[in-house]
């Protein structure tokens, strides 16, 4: 399981070499209307948190082995990260921004609903990533919120395979 967060670290490092921050920040125009430089830099930085958030998700999947609704939600988040054809295609310079914000919102939502204590550093990372959400364009913002809400409600309503002995 931890292989995915390690793989993401490598992928992001390679992407950084190919498209360093100064060029990547300029690419934020494609996904946001904001002109504030600080918001553009934040959007670029947010995607660097993805490997750590994925590592936190992987740890929670192992630790919360008996919490099936939470495990399903976390599994859904990992599947989203794996899928390259998502809301912002992963082959673009800011392709991991949506994955990062969705992981952050999903972790916060899962911890809140399932009354699970998040590690303070993980919580801080999630809150930082979630604070970049208003900088995105309106349709992207709505789609991300809708995805997390629908995933959370769907994973809660699905009956676990573990319910059948």
């Amino acid at each position, binding site marked *: 399981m931890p292989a995915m967060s390690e793989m993401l670290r490598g992928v992001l490092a390679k992407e950084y070499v190919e498209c360093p921050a100064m060029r990547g920040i300029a690419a934020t125009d494609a996904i946001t209307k904001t002109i504030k430089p600080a918001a553009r830099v934040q959007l670029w930085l947010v995607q660097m948190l993805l490997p750590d958030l994925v590592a936190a998700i992987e740890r929670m999947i192992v630790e919360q082995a008996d919490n099936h609704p939470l495990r399903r939600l976390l599994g859904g988040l990992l599947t989203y990260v794996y899928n390259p054809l998502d809301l912002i295609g992963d082959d673009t310079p800011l392709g991991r921004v949506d994955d990062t914000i969705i992981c952050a919102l999903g972790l916060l939502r899962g911890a809140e609903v399932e009354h699970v204590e998040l590690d303070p550093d993980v919580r801080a990372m999630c809150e930082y990533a979630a604070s970049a959400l208003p900088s995105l364009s309106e349709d992207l913002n709505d789609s991300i919120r809708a*995805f997390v809400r*629908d995933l959370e409600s*769907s994973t809660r309503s*699905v009956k676990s*395979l573990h319910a059948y002995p």
Partner: protein
Amino acid sequence: MDTWAYLLIGLAATVVPASALSLLVRTENEKREEGKLPRWARAKNMVSIALGGSAAVDSLPSPKPRVIIGDQSGRVLSGNQSGVVLSRTG
């Protein structure tokens, strides 16, 4: 002269249809890209994909701690024999 004629026929039968087909597929793909789904609809599709993955992750076995019991000499015991815990993993 015959060689050239065969070559031309060969080209007409292979390269030309292949190129035409490739162009056709490319144009069709570009058209689809233009008329791609709005983001909210893609988010809905994404949920159904993610649900498949979530079921797969939830069905992973939970790691249970494993205890190996042995005697003082380090010999691993089995059944109901009592002994000392040699290792605890998981």
